[in-house]
Structure formats: C-alpha cells, structure tokens
C-alpha cells in the first residue's frame, strides 16, 4: 500500500520530467503522457480509497531523510520522509487525481492550438505531483515542502500566458499573498518542532492532547492556520484568488476550485488535533470562515466576469468549509470539500466551455446560450443547483451538514451567516444563469454570441462526468447511504467520534427555502426582468459601489503597501546598504588591502625563498629534537 502511495505521487512527476525532457515538441504525446500518468494516479488512489473503506486503519511508513545528532545544547534535528495513508488522505488523493484527470482531458480541447500546449501539460503534471505529495506526506516538514511546490506550480499556471501583463501580475500577486500565509505557517511549524521535537502527524496527534494547557499552543495553532488562510484565500488573504482567474480556465477549475485552495482545508483537517486542542483558535477559524463566506458572496453579487463570480463563490464556499471545521466537525468540512470539488470544477469547466466558444467573459454580453450549447448549459445549471444546495443534489447534503454542525455546537450567529450566504449563493448563481444562458438574444451587443457552438467531446465529457458526480456525490453523506451500505461519509472520515449521517428537517427546510428564494429573486430581476437591475443598482448606489470595489480591500492593501511597506523598505534598504553591506564591504576591502601588503613577501628572489625554507627546516628540526636534546644532556 505504501508502494502504491509512492507510485501515485511519482507518476505525475515522471510525466513532468518526460514532457520537459523529451516530449515537448509533440503536443499530442505530451498530453498523452500527462493524461496516462494522472489516470494511473487516479486508478491507484481509487484502489487506496476502496482499501481504506474496507479497513480504515492508517498505514504509515517513513524513512530517515536528514539527521543532525544531538550536540551539546543543540537538541538535534531529525527529518523523516514518509507516507501516511488514512481515510482522509485517500479521499483527498482521489479528489485531486480525479479532478486533475478530468481537467487534463478537458484541456486537450480547451488548449488546442495554444503554442504552450506541452508546457501547459507539464505544469499540470507538476501541480498534480505537488498536490498528491502534499496529500500523502506524513509530517509537517514534507507537507510544507509540497505546500511550497503547490504554490510554485500555481504561480506557473496562473501566469501561464506569461507574455500578457494581467496574468503575470496576477501570478505575482498570488505568489506574494501566499508568501504571507506561508511565512506564518513556517514559523508555526518551527515552533511546533521546537516544542514537541517532531514533525510527524501521528506522533503529534498522540502528544498534543497531553499539552492542552500550554498557552503557547494557541500561538502555534494560529501561526499554522495562517498557511491555510493564504492557500485557501480566506479573508484577509483572499485578494489573490479572483485575480488568479487570469490563468487558463481549466487551471482555475483544477487549482482554484477543487484542489489547491482545498489544500488549506485539508491541512486544517490533517492538523485537526492541534486546532481541536485550542478552542479559541477553533472559534477564530469558524469566524474567519463565516466572515469570508458572506463577504465573498456579497462581492459576487455585483461581479460581471463569469470567472470572477465563480472565484468569489469559491471563496465563499471555502469559508463554509472553515466554518464547519471551526465548529468542530472535520467530517462536515471535508464532505463539503468533496462535493464542492465536483460542482465547482464543473462550473469552472462549464464557464471555460462558454469562454472557449465566445471568447467573452462578461455575462451581460452573452445570452441565449441555452440553445446553442445545451450540454454546457444544463450541466452548468446542475452545478449551480448543487452549489445552491437544492435537495437532493450533492451541495444540499454537505451544506446541510455544515449548518447542522454550527447549530449543534451553539454557533447560532454562524448558523445565520450560513443561511444568508446560502441565499446569496443561490441568487448570484442564478443571476449568472438567467443572464448568460437564458437572456434574450435581441439584447446582445457582442457579435461573438452569434456563432457560439457546443464544445468538442473532450470538453463536454468531463462536464457530464462531473455533473453526474454533482448530482449523486452527496448521497454518501445521506441517511439513505447508511441504510444501504451501513456507513456514510461521517463514519469514514471523522475526528473523535464518528458522525453518522442524519437529516434535521429544522435545518434542511429553511436552507432549501432560502435557496429557492434566492433563485426566485434572481428570476424576478434577471429572468423575467420584473425589476430592472440597473434601477436597483441606482437605488442602492453606495452599497453597489462598495461591493463593486470589493470592499476596497485591494485599495487598502495598495495604500498600506505604498505608505507602510515602502517606507519600511526604504529604512531597511538604508540599513542594508550602509550598515550590513558596509561591514561586509569593509571586510572585503580589508582583505584585499592585506593581500596587497602580503604579496610583497613574494619578491621573486630565489634566495629569500631559500632562506625561509632553510630557516623553517632548522626550526622544525630543533623543535622535533627537543627530547633528543634532553637525552643528550642527561
């Protein structure tokens, strides 16, 4: 099983190496290699998942990587590289390889004719490798390594069209923003290691509960949590994700919907024992999640770019996941991650299909797509319904579980935030659908819409697969599943006690009603146009402006950057140049001056050399023969 887990990780990196080294010229070959490798990973991860369902005992193996022995006051350092296969990692690996596989198949159609076709597949393979490595690694150190690799490959993919300004800027923004989170993460890991002397998840899980009284643990937990905050784009690190939509749309589906941003959620789940030990930090996680959920949903209301709407929706849903985790249910969070991966990947790929057909991202410039692109349209609708949380689609079950968790753990305020967000979610998704897919053709100003056409099979097939999963994927967390198979999601992946699936009508019915309300309101404004949205925007001008500017967070950051960071940078630059550089330059010039004086010894006169040599010989002989001299005197 360990071998399989390693193989699972190695397949994509092997594909990456093969593509970069040999296959770059043959586009079809590159895509083939990447797809076959990821398909192999998918098969292996499915096998692992099934094996784990059969016997959920974690399998763990590690080898020593680096060992610095205990020397004096230094406590030594031991870093192992290992693989941990348990239900959590098996599930996550399956999601990652499944979405990656579908996205790769989809990309064959989407990226057709792009000059960087091979490079694209190489990057995708690299990303898949990093993500799978992150999933199966068994300690914080390895996780951090792969975490950074994920960040790197995400940077490469966002900035894939590197010659254009916007993607290049966006990739930089993503990278730098992630750096803030990663820095905290790294410090947290180091503190963790200093406190407990190990990076290993399993060992830490045994140790941390014994140290719950440690106030220090809260600091560690918060620092470790900044990593997921950056990677999962939670407020205040959310700014990079919408901009990251400059990358190719399948990349957005893979990275910024299903896998990479879910890495943060995964890490919190993986390190759940750490957070669970500090209730205050759990509270913080829940509130950050809840705030991001509603905050991003509000911004999504006024966005015009189809991908940005989805991006803010992703933020909002990630907020949901953190809300669930923070409320104490790892099961609910991971369940929503799973279902969200299906329907959000579906939505992104659907959006990609639309963009591919129209070369247009503004939803108000597309309309009537329902007739020209039926598969795309209906899969998109299924995805939106699932995201909106309508019974019995996947999103319903996971969202329901989250709301139930919040309510059960006494987070009433968070529960209401969740409900409002559900309403907003349904509203903005159907705003998009009514405008883009069912609008009247007469109102179109863009000329592309006329020759829109359905995408090729390589693109629609993944859509259909994901649509099916979005419909039935949630059933694993439903009471029916328990009836049929005697278990459910909550009894497979859980922390502490298993959480058997059950449905609370007091939660499910209001959630469904608000979702239907949202859809209805969207129909009133954008479908039937009973109320003109321009008029509404005029009436709510200040709010609309605020939302359109995304609560001015970017502007605030720019301001901070300009006035605080640059000023600080100038000061540090001065210190660096004058003090530090001065010291080292001084050292250098001192050495050079010393050398200039010393080289005068090399006079080139043979006799001086001979003098020194024989003088040294005499001294050495005298020194070596001192005991001989003593003997002579005696």
């Amino acid at each position, binding site marked *: 099983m360990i071998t399989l887990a390693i193989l699972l990780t190695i397949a994509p990196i092997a594909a990456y190496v093969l593509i970069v080294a040999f296959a770059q010229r043959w586009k079809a070959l590159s895509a083939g290699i990447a797809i076959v490798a990821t398909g192999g990973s998918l098969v292996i991860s499915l096998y692992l998942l099934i094996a784990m369902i059969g016997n959920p005992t974690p399998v763990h193996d590690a080898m020593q990587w680096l060992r610095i022995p205990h020397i004096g006051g230094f406590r030594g350092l031991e870093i192992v590289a290992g693989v941990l296969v348990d239900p959590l990692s098996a599930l996550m690996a399956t999601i990652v390889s499944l979405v990656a596989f579908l996205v790769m198949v989809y990309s064959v159609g989407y990226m057709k004719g792009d000059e960087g076709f091979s490079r694209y597949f190489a990057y995708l393979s690299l990303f898949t490798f990093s993500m799978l490595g992150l999933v199966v690694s068994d300690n914080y150190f390895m996780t951090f390594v792969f975490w950074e690799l994920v960040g790197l490959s995400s940077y490469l993919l966002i900035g894939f069209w590197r010659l254009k300004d916007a993607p290049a800027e966006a990739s930089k923004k993503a990278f730098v923003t992630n750096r803030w989170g990663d820095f905290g993460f790294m410090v947290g890991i180091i503190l963790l290691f200093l406190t407990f002397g190990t990076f290993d998840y399993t060992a830490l899980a045994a140790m941390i509960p014994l140290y719950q009284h440690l106030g220090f643990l809260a600091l560690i937990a918060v620092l470790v949590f900044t990593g997921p905050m950056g990677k999962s784009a939670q407020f205040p690190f959310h700014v990079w994700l919408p901009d990251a939509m400059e990358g190719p749309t399948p990349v957005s589906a893979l990275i910024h919907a299903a896998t990479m941003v879910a890495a943060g959620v995964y890490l919190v789940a993986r390190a759940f024992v750490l957070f669970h030990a500090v209730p205050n930090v759990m509270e913080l996680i829940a509130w950050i999640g809840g705030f991001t959920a509603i905050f991003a949903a509000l911004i999504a209301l006024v966005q015009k770019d189809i991908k940005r709407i989805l991006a803010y929706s992703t933020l909002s849903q990630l907020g949901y996941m953190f809300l669930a985790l923070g409320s104490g249910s790892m099961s609910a969070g991971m369940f929503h991650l799973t279902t969200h991966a299906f329907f959000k990947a579906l939505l992104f790929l659907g959006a990609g299909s639309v963009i591919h057909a129209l070369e247009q991202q503004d939803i108000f410039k597309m309309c009537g797509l329902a007739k020209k692109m039926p598969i795309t349209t209906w899969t998109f609708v299924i995805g939106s319904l699932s995201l909106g949380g309508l019974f019995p689609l996947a999103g319903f079950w996971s969202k329901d579980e989250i709301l139930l968790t919040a309510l059960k753990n006494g987070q009433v305020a968070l529960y209401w935030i969740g409900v409002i967000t559900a309403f907003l979610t349904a509203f903005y998704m159907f705003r998009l659908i009514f405008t883009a897919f069912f609008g009247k053709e007469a109102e179109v100003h863009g000329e592309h819409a006329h020759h829109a056409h359905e995408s090729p099979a390589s693109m629609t097939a993944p859509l259909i697969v994901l649509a099916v999963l979005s419909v039935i994927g949630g059933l694993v967390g439903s009471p029916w599943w328990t009836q049929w198979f005697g278990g459910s999601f909550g009894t497979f992946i859980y922390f502490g006690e298993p959480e058997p699936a059950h449905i609370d009508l007091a939660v499910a019915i209001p959630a469904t009603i608000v979702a239907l309300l949202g859809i209805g309101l969207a129909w009133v404004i954008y479908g039937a146009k009973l109320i003109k949205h321009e008029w509404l925007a005029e009436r709510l001008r200040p709010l609309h402006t605020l939302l359109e500017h995304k609560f001015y967070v970017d502007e605030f950051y720019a301001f901070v950057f300009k006035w605080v960071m640059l000023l600080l940078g100038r000061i540090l630059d001065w210190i660096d140049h004058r003090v530090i550089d001065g010291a080292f330059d001084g050292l250098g010039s001192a050495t050079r001056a010393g050398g200039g004086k010393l080289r005068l010894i090399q006079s080139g006169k043979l006799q001086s050399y001979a003098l020194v040599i024989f003088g040294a010989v005499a001294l050495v002989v005298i020194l070596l023969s001192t005991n*001989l001299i003593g003997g*002579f005197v005696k």
Partner: protein
Amino acid sequence: MLGVIFFYVFAAAVVVGAFAMVFTKNLVHAALFMAGTFLMIAFLYILMGADYVGAVQILVYVGAISILFVFGIMLTKRDRIEDSNRFNRYGPAATVVAILLFASIVITTLGAAIRNAPAPTGDSTIQTIANIFLSDYVLAFEFAGILLLSALVGAIVIGQGQLKRTTKLRPAAGGGVQGGGGALGGGAGVGLGQSTKGGDK
C-alpha cells in the same frame, strides 16, 4: 693512528677551503678554493676506503666542474674581478639560519647512538661498484647516461644564444630549463625534444 691525523688534516683543509671559498672577495680565488676543497674531500673518500669515489671526485669535480666554473667566470665577468664575490643583504640572516641549521644537525647527530662498523679490508672497491652498477642499479645507470646526454644538448642549446637568427633568448632558455627538469625526472626523451624545439625557434 695515522688515519686520525690524516682525517684531522684533511678535515681542517676542507673547512678552511670552504670558508675561504665563501668569504673571499675574488671570484676566481673562490673557484680555486673550491677546487682545493673538492680535492681534500676526495682524499677523505680515499681515507674511508672509497677509492673509486675519490677518483671520480678528482676527475669530475676537480678536473671538470671547477674548470667549468672558471670558464663561466671568465665569460661573464667584465668589471673588477677583485670585488666580484660580494654578499647580498641576506648575509646576516643567512648566517643565523646556517648556524641554527648546523646546531640542529650537530645536536641530532651527537644525540644518536652510533655503532661504528670495523674498517673493511683494503681491497679496491672498483670491482664491487661495477657489479652494483650493472646489476642492482642498471636502470639508474642507464638513465644517468641519458641525463648526461640531455644536459649536454641542453647546455649547448641554451648556451649558443646569438649564433641563431633569433636574438630573443627567453623562449630558448625556458625550453632548456624545462628540458633539464624533465631529464632529471627521468623523462630524458621529453627533455631532449623540448630542448631541440626551443633551439630551432
């Protein structure tokens, strides 16, 4: 008893000759003192029963090398010969080093326990040495011959100088020095080749 007297006489002559060679101001006198010193050393060899080495010493050192030195002096010296053998500025330091070295050698020598072997029989050593040269040291013997040959060629090439068209002596000198070094290391063929090459330039 006669051997002891002979030793002290010859040893005193050697020491006096050596000092005189170093401290005299006339280079030609120095060469003469050197020849005398070498001759006394040859007598010491014979005193030790090494008659063949003594003979070679007289032939080569006294007969050839000393004369070569005199030639060298005559070919190069053009200002006053009476003041040609001066010390440079390392004189005091060199004296200190020489004394230190002498002290260390003497101390280690006298500190060591030496058991002197009895004097060998008075037969001539020439037959034994010939046997050694043509059996144990035959390879070294041959190489010594090659070394002498290459030194001969090298000396000619370096020394001829102006006879060739080129007036630049540096490449030729360099080649010759390298050739000599190569020959000393045993690679006589290389040394020879380089010497001729340097000369042909």
